[in-house]
């Protein structure tokens, strides 16, 4: 084999393993799932043996009140988690944006929750939420306050709190990185002009951070739809369906009710939803950017 030929082939050789693996273990399964979602499919059958039922699984789900509830719970969970985490994370970053000693130490402490397994996070919080032996109710007891039924009446809230605990540092660290890479000159200029701290934040810092914040928000949003283990360990989706997010319902449909076809259809609905959200957010940012550019252009014409 000549050297030239090796050189010509080498890009393909570098790419090949990754392409093969992604094709076998990611693309093919996704296609397989779409195919399976049109079938009445039990775990003991191979897909060929399963009966083709057309859109039946999709229609059943569309009319299934439990699926609706689970969808609502998922959207609520994602909305509250992302918005609260964004507010707290960005707020803290703005508050703590100055040079201090021990900042790297602080960051280390803050990324700890993110690194720990969701299963472990779930069990830590399950202990803390425990109605009698848990940390929270014990503290309330010793303060003479009434106990709270964390995982009963307020299950969704409790689950959201646990997620906020784990992931707010992510947003904090990203926003802090974005803040510290802002052009110092713009901030200097504002300070000289006598802008108050609030004005600086609203008119300079936040708009300049926007691109990073949008990506961060998008990443968190995507991850919020992936949460499963924490909720599984904390509440197993209960009480009722009050914390049964879609990911959990898919896994229950597949393993507990043993309806792979329905689970596959549900997975497709979830994928569609995520796709819509991502595309929607991209479109929104493009539109925002375009609008900002137009306004800037107008402002320049005026002056």
């Amino acid at each position, binding site marked *: 084999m000549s050297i030239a030929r090796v050189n010509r082939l080498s890009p393909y050789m570098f790419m090949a393993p990754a392409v093969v693996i992604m094709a076998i273990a990611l693309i093919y399964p996704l296609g397989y799932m779409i195919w399976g979602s049109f079938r009445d499919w039990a*775990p*003991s059958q191979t897909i060929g043996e399963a009966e083709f039922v057309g859109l039946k699984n999709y229609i059943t789900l569309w009319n299934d009140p*439990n699926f609706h509830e689970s969808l609502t719970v998922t959207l609520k969970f994602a909305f509250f988690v992302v918005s609260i985490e964004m507010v707290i994370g960005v707020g803290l970053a703005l508050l703590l944006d100055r040079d201090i000693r021990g900042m790297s130490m602080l960051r280390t402490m803050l990324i700890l929750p993110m690194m720990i397994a969701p299963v472990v996070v779930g069990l830590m919080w399950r202990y803390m939420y*425990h*109605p*009698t032996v848990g940390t929270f*109710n014990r503290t309330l007891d010793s303060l003479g306050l009434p*106990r709270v*039924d*964390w*995982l*009963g*009446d307020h*299950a969704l809230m409790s689950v959201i709190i646990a997620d906020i605990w784990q992931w707010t540092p992510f947003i904090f660290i990203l926003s802090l990185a974005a803040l510290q890479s802002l052009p110092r000159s713009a901030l200097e200029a504002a300070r000289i002009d006598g802008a108050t701290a609030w004005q600086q934040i609203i008119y300079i810092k936040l708009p300049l951070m926007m691109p990073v914040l949008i990506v961060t928000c998008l990443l968190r949003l995507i991850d919020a739809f992936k949460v499963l283990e924490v909720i599984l360990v904390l*509440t*197993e*989706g*209960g*009480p*009722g*369906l*009050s914390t049964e997010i879609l990911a959990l319902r898919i896994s229950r449909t597949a*393993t*507990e*009710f*043993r309806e792979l076809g329905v689970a596959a259809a549900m997975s497709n609905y979830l994928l569609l939803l995520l796709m819509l959200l991502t595309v929607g957010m991209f479109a929104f940012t493009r539109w925002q950017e375009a609008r900002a550019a137009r306004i800037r252009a107008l402002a320049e014409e005026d002056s």
Partner: protein
Amino acid sequence: MLKSLRDISVAGVAATLLAGTALANPYAEYEGTTVIVNFPAHPHYDAVMRVLPEFTKETGIEVEVDQLPYLKMRERQTLELAQEEGEYDLISYVVFSKADYVFADQLENLAKFFMNPKLADPSYDADDLIDGYVQNIGVAGGTKGYLPGPTGSLFGIPFGSETSVLAYRKDIFEKHGIAEPETYAQLLDAACKIPELEPGMGGMASRAASGHQASHAFLLHLAPLGGRVFDDKWNPIINNAAGVEAANALKTIVDCGPEGAMSFGPSEAANAFANGDAAMFMDSIAFMPGFENPDRSKVVGKVGYAMHPEGVRRGSQTGGFGIAIPKNAENKEAAFLLMQWLTSKKGDLMVAMEGGNPSRFSTYQDAGLNEKYPFSATFGEALKYADPDWRPIIPVWGKINADIGTTMSKVLTEDLDIQQALDGVAERTRAVMDEAGYYTWQ
């Protein structure tokens, strides 16, 4: 020196003797075989784990146990049993899995083992097995497919089977002059009186967590209150007056129960009782030995045991586990020997002494057991009223069970109207039954 020489010769003689009698030892052929079993994480099977080394010592058959929580165990088995060749030689199954597995032709009919003179132990005494359990857990194919009847045959042997009894705090009940509840009215009355009399203590600890647990708790009250899930023609009647009453009873119990009762699974409920947070606990007998164990219980010696209270009839649950041999097992004969050994008079008593649930009448009559666990007599009595039809064990039950469980949990937490909720269950159940073909013959 001399002594060791003698030892060696004795050993040698023993070895020759053993070799000579090898044909007479039914286990010899399987010596060294490893039987892989799938057991649930459950007090009864924890007791079994303590007894298993004895089996290996006696027979030379090794046992490897895969212990899983019982709902996980069911998922695992669904997958394993569907394979052409499975991993497990012996499985323990939850009673409601009986329908699925037998329907899918995944369990061995036990007749051929009991017919085989090389395997079947003539002193097994099957008459001594508690008949209600055998019918409910082991036999499939009779009346309605899951009840006893002439067309049924044996697929499993009850092992770790349970019925329900009421555990209550004798000290608290005496202190306030409350009588041992014998009827549902008394039970519900006591359940709500106690939180008033004993601030900080709940009335009764019960399962209530969403899904299987809430459904179990509801059905537990449904049978004694005169209800059923289906009538004789498979029409759902879960939404009749008895159904509403049972749901009301469950709601009352949970409302007057200890802190956090809505998310209790059985272990949380049992822990609450053991910790002194509730005055009553009505569930499987499997939990009761734990209350007399000072390591985990603060109420040792203060607990009274009574029969499941009477509604319009007596009807305690029948549930728990049976053991069976999968069709796709590798060492079926050795698995049968283990099964037979565990459920023999000797094995059953050994397991019971370690805190397991007996499956034999003779075990309940054993003096040693009654001395160690004073409540054994009550349990024996409760068995007479065990109701094999408190829960329909049909192949589509899993789906209906999940629906009842979710709906009940909503009733408990979201104040759904009970009649409306049960009407919804009945309607969805009818659709499921229709699709499964239960109305074909009407």
